[in-house]
């Protein structure tokens, strides 16, 4: 069954109708589920952004206010700050660090020694641990580890004499982003690692052997041979982690609630407080639409730059 045959276009040409309709038949079930689940609600979300509607009146139609909600959101100076916080400290920094660390860790864990010593299962299970910890618990555990007085991190730093007094990492503007980023990266890194690991495993070892015989050193093999082969996976992981992180609400909310003050306010927390603290669903939805548009533009650009290139190959 696995004997590779030379290209056999005959099989496809023999069934022109089937061949033409088959792709649609194959993608139909998924598209139907997605349409049922996302299409209506997404339209609702956009419609809501043009209304003035209280949380308590969700069952009724709101007052239609045109672009008022958008005007309010875009003219509010706190939106600019929240956008910056979302784009840079929350998304860009953590995505880049996750990709780099994830790639390095995946390369390390792909070392043949783990397979030869039958440690593969142990290594891959250990990697997974942060990710299977529920976010609310992961953040709570980190908050306690970072606590100025009771936290293990500070107790260790003080114990070794590195600092004299514990640092309240989440209470200081100089350290709060670092702390939130640490939590996010810690919990989300395993996803990147196991994705890359799976991709690395599908690279035939013969490729490396061949390169080695040709005289390439380890670094050259990884950067010239392995990295290009990982490109499709890296492309997908980058796109998705960027979108997810940009929309992510959980880490900032659980760790700081956007504080201290409004120092770590991001668009997702701003949307949440507008909708569920100020009860202004229309304005909240407008923030959501603004976020969607930003990410949509990002995804389109990304899609055409990265996937076009692949499609033409």
């Amino acid at each position, binding site marked *: 069954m696995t004997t590779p045959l030379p290209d056999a276009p005959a099989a496809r040409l023999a069934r022109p109708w089937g061949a033409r309709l088959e792709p649609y038949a194959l993608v139909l079930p998924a598209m139907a589920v997605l349409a049922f689940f996302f299409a209506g609600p997404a339209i609702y979300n956009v419609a809501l952004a043009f209304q003035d509607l209280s*949380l*308590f*009146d969700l069952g009724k139609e709101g007052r239609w206010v045109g672009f008022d909600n958008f005007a309010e959101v875009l003219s509010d100076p706190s939106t600019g700050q929240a956008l910056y916080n979302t784009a840079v400290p929350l998304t860009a920094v953590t995505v880049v660090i996750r990709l780099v660390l994830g790639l390095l860790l995946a390369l390390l864990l792909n070392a043949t020694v783990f397979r030869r010593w039958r440690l593969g299962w142990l290594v891959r299970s250990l990697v997974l641990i942060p990710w299977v910890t529920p976010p609310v618990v992961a953040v709570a555990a980190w908050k306690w580890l970072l606590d100025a007085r009771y936290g293990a991190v500070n107790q260790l730093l003080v114990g070794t004499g590195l600092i004299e007094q514990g640092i*309240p990492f989440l*209470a200081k503007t100089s350290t709060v982003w670092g702390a939130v980023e640490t939590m996010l990266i810690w919990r989300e890194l395993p996803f990147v690692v196991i994705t890359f690991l799976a991709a690395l495993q599908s690279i035939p070892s013969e490729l490396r052997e061949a390169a080695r015989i040709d005289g390439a050193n380890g670094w050259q093999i990884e950067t010239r041979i392995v990295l290009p082969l990982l490109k499709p996976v890296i492309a997908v992981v980058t796109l998705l982690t960027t979108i997810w992180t940009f929309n992510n609400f959980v880490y900032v909310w659980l760790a700081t609630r956007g504080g201290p*003050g409004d120092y770590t306010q991001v668009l997702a927390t701003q949307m949440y407080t507008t909708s569920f603290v100020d*009860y202004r669903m229309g304005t909240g939805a407008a923030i959501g639409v603004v976020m969607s548009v930003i990410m949509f533009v990002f995804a389109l650009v990304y899609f055409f730059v990265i996937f076009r290139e692949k499609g033409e190959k």
Partner: protein
Amino acid sequence: MKKDYWRRLALSTTCLVTLAGFSSAAIAQEQVELVFRQFDPPTETEGLVAAIEKWNAANPDIQVRMETMSGADTLAQLAREVPAGAGPDIQHLAFVWTRDLARSDLLLELDPLIAAEPPGAGLDDFLALDLATLDGKVYGVPWTSDTFAMAYRPDLLEGADLEFPDTWEDLATASEALTTGDGQFGFCFPAGSSPDSGMWMLVNYYLWSNGSTLIDETAPGQWEIVATVEDLTATMTYFNDFFASGSAPESLITVNSWGDPELVGGLGRGDCAITFFPPQTFRAAEAQADVPLMTAAIPAGSVKRISHLGGRALGINPNTEHPEEAWAFVQYLLGPDTFATYNQYPAQKSLVAELDFPESEAGYVEMMPVAQTYERYISSPIAVSSMTALVNREFGAVFSGQRSPEEASKAILTELQDLLARGQN
């Protein structure tokens, strides 16, 4: 090969259908089944569960099932459910929600039921009924009540040869005296910036006791921001000084809830000499502490001593098919039988009068009569939750050094004016 695949598909479909069967099968019974939704965690509701079991045993025709949903999620859930025609029959409500829900027809008007069968010793016996009333109609019945009091370690105060501080100024002085530099702090309080942080309570106690308030109805229908930049600046400076003087640990700037282990355990370990708690939290702290804990009155300001009267009400869903049965159950929950096992302060004057308070809860006994509801804020055109979020955020900005007390005070007043203008529109 092909058959095999379809067999598997059929198998998984069967699984799904069976799943669908299981939840609908239980409903088809003759007796009335009511759903009562409440939002406290299991450790606080053992007595309530016992009371409901007793009801179910005595009323085979009206069986009540208790659901739990955390308070933070309840409002949005009701806003989704009730317009769709769903939701629990009886709903546990924070005092401050009732009017918002009533205004949008998300609660059943109770007057006909009350007229047919008045609850308890009559409506006048209930505390905070004003919060459950909209345009003269009653939409909820106050059920449990609580206020806040200071909680402290008598041994630590004795050790420092201190009486419990009587005024805010005394508290600041005592707090410094109780700070030892080896991990014991004088006064611990939730200073977090969250929209629901406990800071809000302290800010209002301080403002009210010194004769100010954020907003007030100066003439009928005429709402005005009352607090001045000076009032707010003084309040911010007062609380910020605990951090500046080192008599409160900076890690509190990230603590939002009075139930945080930093506070509950802090008192138990003696890392905090004084804090402030509602009764349920105080009891949890007592259970964890090796030494006796005490409560005392909230410090007095230049004008008076005050705390807020909070609590929970019971409401009925307008979608319920069994309003009479639901009302009968509400009446049972309001009665002394429930409070025999449910460890909460009732919201009825006659029942509170009968209560035997343990000595350690003396602070609550003292504060109950002077406690005031958030009525003046709730009636205003600004959502209380928005005010709370704004105040907590700006205090957090001061504590973390992002803004000076003056800047933050001005920010609060500007935004309050905006909120007022929008609310009146």
